[in-house]
């Protein structure tokens, strides 16, 4: 089997799985559905590994054109958009994450959804999602990427609204789709601009066409493309101002949150920016905007995460915040560390979500952390893997988050588009992260158990056969947790900071991820180094200093959280009371949703109503109806002439005839 066919198979097998589950296996037993779905992701995972360690590792770019998709004459030539797939070192990383983490989550979901009926729908959507995500990262041109881009949006819509009988879930799905659509418009406009500027949407062709001269002559256009791409990224990767959909998206089943809203779909923005890095770096404005948006999102979302009480909401805001880190990384020019963080985040956030799902599953869909506590005794595997995930995300030295996050923070200060202020925002976000993650973990797994009490009130007698005994979940759910925990520990070593490398005596110029992505980022590097004479104004001492600072901040904030919440969920109340108004504002998520509702949605609805009432009904219909009324007045006079007697009609004919003859005579 050659690599081209393998590439096509990677994309098509999940689609096949979706079709099988969606149409043919609707009434198949649950185990068949789950196996088909999991295999449909696992087989591509094997192929991805083969590709990864085969041609991609050797530095080749595998490309296959499946069929000619769009072909239109354009400006004397032809605009050809084949349905082409390509895998290079960047997409290979994402391939592994999507199929690898995807397989684990499918396995997990099979168990998680065991109490549901008609799970074929769930797994069909899930496979379809993987298909879309794969076409997003494998697309050789922007349109194929866009197919995946919107495809993941629609799958996410369907999966968030999976339990559609509750209208709130369906609404959350709709919100996600529409926020994504706003971003998609940015992507669309970026495509149109690249057609205008380069006459193509193929990444490699754009890269070839984009010379420094062209970029210099069309600077506004390049900036516009960059900003439009950023709009797309804010939609899909839940950045300010479009992040609002992601917390609501937690309405979906938890494996969905793990796969879509942590590991894969939301990171596609980072993928896209890295893919287009060669273009973005030509615009200082665009890069700075990206960095600022990323840093602000990271801090902003982290503040909301501080006070949330829903286990999934905390993780959701944490995701938004972490995505902010990645965008910040890209914005300052450290695309490779954005990708590295993407990868480590995929591991530990998937782990955290799956752990949360495990808790929720065991607690029969209870999500309030105030009603948990002390669970580690009952669910040791879930508990300890969750702790590993927490340590990874807060950047505990040695775990994956430490390396990737610190590289981003370091570059935020020293990178080609970096600035100490950006570092400060990022460090603030990291501090908040430490606080809320430790709070979350402590309240859920340690301290007094608040479980029985809460459920005692709920049991109204009819619940008696339900055993509320909380116990560890089966292997199908814990195995993915363990694998992901392992990855969360070791995953970060690909982006080991220079300073540590030197200390450890590793003899390499660059860390693994920089080395690996260097072909993809070569042209961007070139532009950035040309723009900034001295390559990186950082030094080993600064690196050590920043690393030390963030570790210190992490330790302080974690300790602070532990000391506060030692006494249970009410531990934070004293501070909350002290800043009452601010606390409520943050608890209400800064009331951004209400702001959008009041400033955009409601006025638009009013405009729609006004158009209908005054535009259509009053104005246009008015003119249309009143005009004929005038005619009616005239005709009502004339209609008296219509006596209904044939004789009288004939008189008119006669008069006309005589008049005609008279006219001829004269």
């Amino acid at each position, binding site marked *: 089997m050659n690599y081209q066919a393998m590439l096509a198979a990677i994309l098509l097998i999940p689609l096949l799985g979706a079709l099988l589950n969606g149409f043919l296996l609707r009434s198949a037993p649950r185990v068949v559905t789950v196996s088909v779905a999991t295999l449909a992701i696992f087989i591509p995972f094997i192929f991805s590994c083969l590709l990864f360690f085969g041609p991609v590792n050797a530095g080749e770019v595998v490309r296959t054109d499946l069929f000619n998709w769009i072909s239109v004459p354009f400006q004397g030539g032809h605009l050809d958009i084949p349905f082409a797939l390509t895998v290079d070192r960047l997409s290979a990383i994402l391939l592994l994450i999507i199929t690898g983490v995807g397989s684990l989550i499918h396995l997990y979901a099979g168990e998680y959804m065991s109490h549901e009926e008609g799970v074929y729908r769930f797994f069909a959507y899930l496979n379809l999602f993987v298909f879309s995500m794969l076409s997003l990262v494998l697309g050789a041109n922007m349109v194929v990427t866009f197919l995946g881009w919107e495809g993941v949006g629609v799958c996410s819509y369907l999966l968030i609204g999976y339990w559609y009988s509750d209208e709130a879930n369906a609404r959350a799905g709709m919100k996600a789709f529409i926020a994504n659509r706003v971003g998609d418009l940015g992507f669309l406009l970026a495509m149109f601009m690249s057609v205008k500027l380069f006459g193509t949407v193929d990444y490699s062709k754009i890269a070839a066409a984009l010379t420094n001269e062209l970029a210099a002559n069309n600077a506004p256009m390049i900036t516009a493309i960059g900003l439009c791409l950023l709009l797309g990224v804010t939609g899909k990767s839940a950045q300010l101002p479009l992040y609002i959909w992601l917390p609501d998206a937690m309405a979906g089943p938890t494996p969905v949150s793990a796969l879509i809203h942590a590991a894969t779909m939301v990171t596609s923005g980072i993928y896209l920016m890295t893919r287009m890095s060669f273009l973005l770096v030509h615009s200082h404005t665009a890069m700075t905007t990206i960095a600022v948006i990323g840093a602000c999102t990271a801090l902003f979302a982290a503040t909301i995460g501080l006070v949330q009480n829903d286990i999934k909401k905390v993780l959701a805001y944490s995701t938004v915040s972490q995505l902010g880190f990645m965008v910040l990384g890209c914005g300052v020019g450290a695309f490779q560390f954005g990708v590295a963080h993407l990868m480590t985040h995929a591991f530990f956030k998937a782990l955290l979500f799956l752990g949360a799902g495990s808790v929720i599953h065991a607690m029969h869909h209870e999500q309030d952390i105030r009603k948990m506590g002390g669970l580690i005794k009952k669910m040791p595997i879930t508990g300890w893997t969750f702790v590993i995930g927490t340590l990874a995300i807060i950047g505990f030295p040695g775990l994956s988050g430490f390396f990737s996050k610190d590289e981003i923070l370091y570059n935020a200060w020293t990178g080609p588009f970096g600035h100490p202020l950006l570092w400060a925002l990022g460090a603030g976000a990291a501090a908040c992260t430490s606080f809320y993650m430790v709070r979350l973990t402590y309240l859920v797994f340690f301290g007094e158990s608040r479980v029985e009490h809460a459920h005692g009130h709920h049991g109204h007698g009819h619940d008696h056969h339900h055993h509320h005994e909380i116990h560890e979940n089966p292997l199908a759910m814990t195995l993915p947790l363990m694998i992901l925990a392992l990855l969360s520990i070791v995953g970060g070593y690909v982006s080991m900071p220079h300073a540590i490398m030197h200390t450890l005596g590793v003899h390499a110029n660059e860390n693994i991820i920089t080395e690996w992505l260097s072909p993809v980022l070569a042209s961007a590097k070139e532009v950035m180094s040309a723009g900034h004479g001295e390559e990186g104004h950082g030094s080993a001492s600064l690196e050590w200093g920043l690393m030390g600072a963030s570790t210190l901040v992490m330790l302080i904030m974690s300790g602070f959280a532990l000391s506060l919440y030692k006494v249970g969920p009410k531990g934070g109340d004293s501070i909350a009371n002290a800043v009452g108004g601010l606390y409520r504002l943050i608890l209400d998520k800064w009331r951004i949703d209400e702001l959008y509702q009041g400033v955009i949605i409601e006025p638009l609805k009013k405009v729609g109503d006004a158009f209908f009432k005054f535009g259509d009904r009053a104005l246009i219909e008015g003119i249309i109806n009143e005009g004929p009324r005038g005619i009616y007045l005239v005709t009502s006079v004339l209609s008296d002439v219509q006596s209904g007697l044939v004789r009288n009609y004939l*008189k008119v004919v006669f*008069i006309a005839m*005589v008049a005609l*003859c*008279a006219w*001829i005579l004269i």
Partner: protein
Amino acid sequence: MNLSLLSFIVMGITAVLLSGVMITRRWPVSAAMVLIAIMTLLAGMFGLLEAHFAAAAQIIVYAGAIMVVFVFVIMLLNLPPEELRYGGVTVGEMILIAVSVFVAVGLGTKVGQGFLTTGLESMGVAQGESVAGGHHMYFPASENVKNVAASMFVDYLWAFELISFLIMAAVIGAVVIAKKRSAEHADAA
């Protein structure tokens, strides 16, 4: 003034006068008889105009077929004789009549001055030329039927076929309209 012109004028005047007679009859049957006479006269005029086919058709179809149907219906209905006027002639009607007589006389004078011929020439239509453009040929009178056929079955073939449909529809329609409704009768009974 040659014989054909003389007879044409006589026939024309007779026809006009007879038509005046026709519209003033009280008995429908006599009116129909007068109309047959008018049609015969017209056929003669067609003949003088060298439209032999038209003349023949006028006699056969009009005077023969159509008028027979009229007479049948008149006899079927067996109407009583009718009062001629339904009321006084209004002032407007009198003015109309006066003006029309005036116009008719004026037109007659103009025709006498060769008005029509010059009018046609000024419109660019000369002898032997179709208004619609195309032919430039002379039609000998002796081949009138052939010429009519050539025109009718080549240029006007579609129209001819459509007309045949129209007649068929009319026949069926007439039957349907005039048929006694059996259902009505059943109800009545």
